[in-house]
């Protein structure tokens, strides 16, 4: 590898994005394009007893109104509706399938018209009546109905007894509200109809997942449906599963034999998946010196009545902190709501917040510095399997972040630090996520002019996949990055799973590396075999690709050009496609880590909280691109600030309906909320995880941030808020 990997390289799709040339799902044109407007339910549970579309159908320009009683056939088996990331247990939601209402804002009809204004207007004319049924949407009221679904890790020792007998004990509930992804792009699909095929431009994190799903739902073959998603305007997990608008657009296109576009409204997006409201119960028992004897973490989370969605909220202490006794459980409460889905660092963002807040409370009880307590309990092994880590530079994270933040100047007493009228609080927390990798294939087509096209069905949802793929390919092929073209997110391209879980950087990079190695071998064979070759007699294994040349590794002056070698073999192009391969390794735990330090300033009279500084030191193996990588972590910090201080979907449980289903009343951070964010990449060489030592960055940046802020708020005010978001009323009450 030479020049590009590891550098601060600008995004290769930057020009397209700043000029407006980048096209998103709802922006593709088609002849005779129709526009669909979705009509959604206004009750959380029951049946549709009347759905009269006659008024809408009389509007000039309305083509049809699709309902459960008037639609093209849909698959009738649950298996057909299970996409590759659907929960194992349950019966996935089927839009317009029958008259049952399972959650508020469920789609019940699609008005299709010649233009969007007409469809939107006609949608107001539907006459709908329901038979309502009793429902429940309140997690805390229904807590007693929770049932255990998952033990992330087997219990060790007797945590209950150890907790009961501990010299210092801390136990509390921490509450995470329902949070919505709110990507800036509205969910959208443009289904372009042709007699024998559909081209579906969809907002998704996985084009092949959507393609397989549509094929099974509509009984089509892969050559009849192609899914394309070159640019995705944010997703954060919301685009892992196919969303209902892609079913409805496909349904309408097949039914009407016309091209159809559907763009959801911001309000309708609150009827999609979300981070589930969760009660996190944490119990910690310690000796006076800070040695942990007991860790108990139980999560009680929301799921729908029809699917069992759960993630690992509670297993993280098993990896972070030594304790002889531990017990973890995950329980679900089934409510009349849509199924939750993955949202940035699912499980960890919620669970580690509770754990790290509890650790802060324990440190206070022990009168220990919070960093010192964490170092005291530091675990060099994953206790659940008793495994070492492929790498774990968490100690360096604490050290570097604390130094950059100036932690040694902290007065540990709450309410002890001030800046004029504002109380100042300093808090810290640990972050952890998994370093995952998945099967991904890449194809490289090298042409004799020294240009290469690299392609894969993998997505770039703003994460920088286009750029890192170009960097890795340029280095592996010894070409300038300008000579590399990257094509992604088309279901006809080589295999890739959904982009999620922070696995795409490692997975796609190693696919590119594998395909490039095949290209190198082919070029080496040609170069060595050329008549009068300066490489004659060289072992092809010693041949490298560098600076546009094919050269002997030990003597780069002995080289031939790619063009000459390919001409000698009468080749205009070399095409290689390869699936990545990772050696199976069950002897190590694989994780990324972080240490987050935050400063808040709080107006004592008004309770207004500002997060004035955040230092996030991340150990995540090799960082492919320090520019886009830093941005990704910085964006995650912004998410963490939103989680701690702003975000909450508020349900009126009398109606089972979200009251702030828009992006003004569901608060997310705005520019004025964000101040200094310092991202430190801690050097972490990892020789075990994969060839390039890549771990992934998508999630680790958020984990730890909410707790660091909550702990800083406590330090500033002496008030411990265990219910997110920490709004000013909770400080003043």
């Amino acid at each position, binding site marked *: 590898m030479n020049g590009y990997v590891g550098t601060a390289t*600008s*995004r290769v799709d*930057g*020009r397209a*994005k*700043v*000029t*407006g*040339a*980048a096209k*998103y799902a*709802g*922006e593709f*044109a088609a002849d005779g394009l129709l526009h669909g407007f979705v009509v959604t339910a206004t009750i959380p549970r029951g049946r549709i007893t009347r759905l009269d579309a006659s*008024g809408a159908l*009389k*509007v*000039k*320009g309305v083509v049809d109104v699709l309902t459960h009683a008037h639609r093209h056939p849909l698959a009738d088996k649950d298996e057909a509706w299970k996409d590759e990331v659907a929960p194992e247990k349950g019966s996935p939601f089927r839009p317009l399938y029958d008259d049952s209402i399972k959650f508020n804002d469920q789609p019940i009809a699609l008005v299709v018209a010649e233009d*969007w*204004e*007409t469809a939107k*207007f*006609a949608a107001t*004319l539907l006459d709908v009546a329901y038979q309502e049924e009793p429902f429940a949407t309140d997690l805390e009221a229904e807590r007693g109905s929770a049932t255990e679904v998952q033990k992330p890790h087997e219990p060790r020792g007797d945590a209950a007894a150890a907790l009961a007998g501990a010299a210092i004990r801390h136990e509390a509930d921490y509450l995470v509200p329902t949070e919505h*992804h*709110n*990507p*800036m*792009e*509205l969910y959208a699909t443009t289904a372009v109809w042709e007699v024998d095929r559909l081209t579906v431009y969809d907002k998704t994190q996985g084009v092949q997942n959507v393609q397989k799903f549509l094929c099974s739902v509509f009984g089509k073959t892969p050559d009849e449906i192609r899914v394309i998603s070159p*640019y995705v*305007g*944010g997703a954060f997990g919301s685009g892992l599963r196919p969303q209902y608008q892609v079913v409805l657009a496909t349904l309408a296109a097949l039914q009407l034999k016309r091209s159809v576009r559907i*763009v959801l*409204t*911001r309000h309708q997006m609150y009827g999609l998946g979300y981070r589930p409201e969760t009660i996190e119960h944490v119990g910690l028992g310690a000796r006076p010196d800070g040695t942990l004897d007991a860790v108990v973490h139980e999560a009680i989370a929301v799921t729908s009545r029809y699917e069992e969605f759960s993630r690992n909220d509670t297993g993280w202490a098993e990896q972070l902190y030594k304790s002889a006794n531990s017990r973890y459980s995950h329980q679900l409460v089934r409510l009349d709501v849509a199924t939750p889905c993955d949202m940035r660092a699912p499980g960890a963002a919620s669970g580690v917040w509770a754990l790290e807040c509890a650790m802060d409370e324990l440190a206070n009880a022990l009168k220990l510095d919070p960093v010192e307590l964490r170092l005291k309990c530091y675990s060099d092994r994953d206790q659940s399997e008793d495994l070492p880590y492929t790498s774990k530079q968490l100690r360096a994270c604490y050290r570097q972040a604390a130094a950059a933040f100036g932690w040694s100047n902290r007065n540990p007493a709450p309410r002890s630090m001030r800046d004029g009228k504002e109380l100042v609080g300093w808090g810290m927390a640990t972050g952890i996520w998994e370093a995952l990798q998945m099967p991904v294939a890449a194809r490289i087509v090298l042409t004799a002019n020294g240009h290469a096209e690299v392609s894969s069905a993998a997505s770039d*949802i*703003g*994460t*920088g996949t286009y750029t890192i793929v170009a960097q890795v390919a340029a280095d592996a092929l010894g070409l300038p990055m300008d000579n590399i073209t990257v094509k992604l997110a088309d279901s006809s391209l080589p295999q890739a799973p959904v982009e999620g879980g922070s696995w795409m950087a490692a997975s796609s990079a190693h696919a590119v590396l594998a395909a490039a190695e095949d290209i190198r071998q082919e070029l080496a064979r040609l170069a060595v075999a050329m008549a009068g070759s300066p490489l004659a007699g060289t072992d092809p294994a010693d041949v490298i690709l560098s600076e546009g040349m094919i050269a002997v590794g030990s003597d780069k002056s002995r080289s031939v050009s790619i063009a000459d070698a390919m001409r000698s073999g009468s080749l205009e192009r070399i095409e290689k496609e390869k699936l990545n391969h990772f050696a199976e390794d069950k002897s190590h735990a694989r994780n990324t880590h972080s240490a987050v330090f935050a400063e808040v300033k709080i107006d004592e009279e008004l309770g207004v909280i500002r997060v004035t500084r955040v230092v996030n030191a991340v150990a995540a193996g090799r960082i492919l691109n320090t520019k*886009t990588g*830093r*941005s990704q972590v*910085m*964006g995650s*910090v*912004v*998410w963490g600030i939103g989680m701690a201080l702003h975000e909450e979907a508020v349900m009126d449980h009398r109606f089972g309906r979200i009251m702030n289903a*828009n*992006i*003004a009343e569901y608060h*997310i*951070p*705005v*520019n*004025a909320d*964000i101040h*200094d*964010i310092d991202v430190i990449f801690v050097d972490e060489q990892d020789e075990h995880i994969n060839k390039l030592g890549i771990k992934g960055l998508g999630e680790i940046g958020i984990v730890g941030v909410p707790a660091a802020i909550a702990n800083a708020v406590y330090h500033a005010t002496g008030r411990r808020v265990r219910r997110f978001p920490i709004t000013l009323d909770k400080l003043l009450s």
Partner: protein
Amino acid sequence: MTDSTNQIPDRIRLSFVVNGTKRTLDLVPWTTLLDALRDHLGLTGTKKGCDHGQCGACTVLVDGRRINSCLTLAVMKDGAEITTVEGLAQDGTLHPLQQAFIDHDAFQCGYCTPGQLCSAAGLLSEGRAKDADEIRELMSGNLCRCGAYPNIVAAIQQTMSWP
């Protein structure tokens, strides 16, 4: 409601200059400027993120001022001069703000970016923002869910100091 009230009213003819070119459209009166640009002129660089004036993704310059095009009916802007993100670059040369956004990685998914750019261009011509705090405050009508705010501020600062 009678059938007659449920029909779309007649279209209205209007013209405006978009990115230097005069465009004439026949639109139903409730068509927003945003939908006129995206659906009727094919200028999809301007983004729809909420349609309620809450997110700023649809920000364009009308007669040099930044506005939310989703809160503006197209007919209200008959005769106006409109600049969208597609009109910021001149003869293939990026506007200094566009280059600064690339240099500072002031976006990830890119969806809010056209609105951020037009808003920033409006901000520069207003001449009100003098420091980072004022930029943050005056750019707070443009949401960025990827959280690129510090880089957006840095990109705007770079452009402000541009000769």
